[in-house]
């Protein structure tokens, strides 16, 4: 197999009609986090655990109808309550590590609500085989998409 490591950074900004503390809380609370991150079809079996503290792990596992496993594990590296979360995560699909990323989520007051800035610095490994399995169930949601992909290079 040809080995590849393609690096890129992308940013997603969203505003919510809720305080930064409440938006942060939806990331910090395991029940809340499980609710809004569950994006797989109902026919999949899923498990989720979140140990939200610096050095803590979050493990997300899903198995599709064929029993193929898709796993996402995060390590929390920096937490400033109500303001910032930094974590590293990888995605392993059908036994293949697809990507490894460093994510910074910043929460700021914006008017009566909050602005959330999600920055992901990712390395996609070996041409990301298994793409269709990994993204199965992500569904629609492109209406707000603004592609802000920085120049993508396959070697740095």
């Amino acid at each position, binding site marked *: 197999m040809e080995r590849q490591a393609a690096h*890129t950074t*992308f940013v997603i900004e*969203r505003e919510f009609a809720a305080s930064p503390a409440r938006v942060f809380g939806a990331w910090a609370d395991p029940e809340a986090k499980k609710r809004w991150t569950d994006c797989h079809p109902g026919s999949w079996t899923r498990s989720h655990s979140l140990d939200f503290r610096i050095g803590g792990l979050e493990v997300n596992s899903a198995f599709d109808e064929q029993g193929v496993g898709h796993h996402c594990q995060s390590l929390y590296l920096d937490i400033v309550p109500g303001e910032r979360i930094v974590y590293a995560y990888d995605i392993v699909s059908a036994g293949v590590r697809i990507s490894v990323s460093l994510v910074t989520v910043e929460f700021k007051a914006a008017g009566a609500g909050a602005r959330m800035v999600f920055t992901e610095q990712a390395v996609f490994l070996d041409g990301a085989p298994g*793409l269709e399995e990994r993204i199965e169930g992500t569904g629609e949601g*492109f209406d707000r998409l603004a592609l802000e992909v920085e120049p993508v290079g396959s070697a740095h």
Partner: protein
Amino acid sequence: MAPDAGLDRTFHALADASRRGMIDRLSRGPASVSELAQPLAMALPSVVKHLAVLEAGGLVTSEKAGRVRTYRLAPGGLSAVETWVAARKAGLEKQFDRLEEYLQQQAAAPPKEP
């Protein structure tokens, strides 16, 4: 066509998991409609519709030889990594939509005190 309209069509084309699966399959080489349909458990007419959306989005091209129409990734379409990032962003945007719904529900009905 305005450039933005083209981009909208590209994003629309990528907004469906089945279509992204087809893109991924085509990134490994050209394929016929039935080859693309095979792993999807989807009727051929549905596959043809999805492929038409991808073609309108400038992501794939096709040519007919005899009775077989063969699809391939369009030159100048998104690169594999760009497609990948677009797919991941779509998934995240979807999650953040759910986060927004969650926050709205919470505001409407504050959680009970323990």
